């Protein structure tokens, strides 16, 4: 579905992602690793927010390198950024509408998608008139996921969705993601490996801009190296 071939990215002279090749299949994929491993940089590269030094990225057969960020989103890639990154002065309703209105393939079905999103996150419907910036962290995360779903993506990318949330909310969120993967492919980057492995089919462990371990969720759960380094066992 999403192919990253030999990509390298750097900030100034500092390399962050080194010659990385990664195949994201349909279903759900986890990208795990500590701070500074290069997870967010890969997402930014997929969106075209960070230029590639080498390599190429293609999505469902279309090369993304020369496409602008909004054109990549129009192809069916939606991202929920790490810091929730809502439009804080817009209402919940407006945030959701913006998510669907600007993607040609989703535009005609905004009303229906809105209902579907509100079924997944009922709290959003109750807060339609509230300014997004005044919501709690967990609600903002739900809104960010809801806004991304409004684009009816083929691939939903979530950048550290558990960041700054209390464990019970993280647990609920991953349960929702687990349900959602029937309808949309999901790629999630996380430091919280234990919780994430519940929701993904396959996972990749990153360190210093490189993939060091790849396997199914079961394989990673039982890998002693992963257990020791990322699950605190």
């Amino acid at each position, binding site marked *: 579905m999403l192919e990253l071939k030999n990509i390298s990215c750097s900030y100034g002279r500092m390399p962050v992602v080194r010659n990385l090749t990664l195949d994201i299949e349909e279903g759900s994929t986890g990208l795990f690793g500590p701070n500074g491993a290069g997870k967010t940089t890969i997402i930014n590269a997929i*969106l075209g927010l960070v230029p590639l030094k080498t390599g190429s990225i293609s999505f469902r057969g279309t090369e993304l390198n020369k496409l602008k960020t909004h054109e990549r989103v129009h192809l069916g890639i939606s991202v929920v950024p790490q810091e929730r990154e809502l439009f804080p002065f817009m209402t919940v309703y407006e945030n959701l509408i*913006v*998510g669907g209105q*600007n993607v040609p393939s989703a535009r005609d079905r905004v009303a229906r998608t809105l209902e579907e999103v509100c079924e997944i996150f009922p709290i959003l419907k109750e807060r*339609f008139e509230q300014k997004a910036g005044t919501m709690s962290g967990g609600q903002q995360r739900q809104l960010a996921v809801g806004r991304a779903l409004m684009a009816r993506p083929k691939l939903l990318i979530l950048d550290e969705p558990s960041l700054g949330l209390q464990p019970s909310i993280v647990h609920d969120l991953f349960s929702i993601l687990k349900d959602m993967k029937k309808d949309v492919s999901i790629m999630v980057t996380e430091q919280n490996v234990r919780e994430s492995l519940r929701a993904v089919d396959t996972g990749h462990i990153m360190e210093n801009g490189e993939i060091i371990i790849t396997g199914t969720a079961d394989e990673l759960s039982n890998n002693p190296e992963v257990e020791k380094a990322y699950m605190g066992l």
Partner: protein
Amino acid sequence: MNSTVQKNKTWPVIFGILGVIVMILPFFSGPYIQSIGRTVITYMILAISWDMLIRSGQLSFGLAGFFGLGSYAAVLSAVNLHFNPFISIVFAALVAGLIAFLVGAVVLRLRGMYFAITTLALGEIFRIIIHNWTSLTGGPNGKLLPKLAFDGASIPTYAMMVLFALIIIALSEYFKRSRIHYALTAIRDNEIVAKSSGINIYKYLLIAFTVTAAIQGAAGAGFAQLYGFVTPESSFNANYTLIPLAMTLLGGMYSTWGPVIGAVLLGVLGEFLKLYIPYGHLVVYGIIIILVLLFMPWGIVGMAGRLLKKGESHE
């Protein structure tokens, strides 16, 4: 939720009715009041157009530039191509819009202060070109119109400006209710997230810049048709940038009614003050703006909205 929506719809209607009354009143007075009305409406149109662009977060100081360009386009088309006054206004809007489109394709890659300073410089470049292209523009002496709209009759020209203002108010409200509004607000709130939500930032900024410049050009053309002459110094005067900006800040940004209310209040007050302290009215403008920014940064409409919401939450 329904009652809130209902209340929110009531206030624009009240503001609208008040606005219509204020616009109609000069019809029942003399030419002097109608002349003030025309000037206030010109500034109101400029203020609304400035607000329509600032909704995207892009601060433009290019109002006087496109205003002057429009006024010259109207006069030169009337003199050289014998366009009638109304066609010349439409022509001026097209010229200003086309130039904004071409210039915007380049300068809209800039953001914040860089964009603001570039638009200010653009206005100055337009003025210098007009000033020095003597064979076409008449140079520093300017140009005279052979014939004024409605032969300069006071009531019809005032009616023309009222109609013009109503069209711009409707256009601004359309902007507020369309997909453009959400896109522009998203761009203002967070450009990276806007891009990541599928918004073609460049396209929407170019639409907003082109449409607002066309409005400013048409306002300049209307003004030239009212007064019958253009000179570089009068048509590209910095007042056409600064006064609409002050009016919008007073009335409240990011709405149609903010600039309308700001223009009526500051415009009428300015005319009144001119009688007692000629040129000193600009000092009073400055003091008002400082006070508004310090104590009422959301302007009159924003403050009224907040008070209303407070009142509703106490009910």
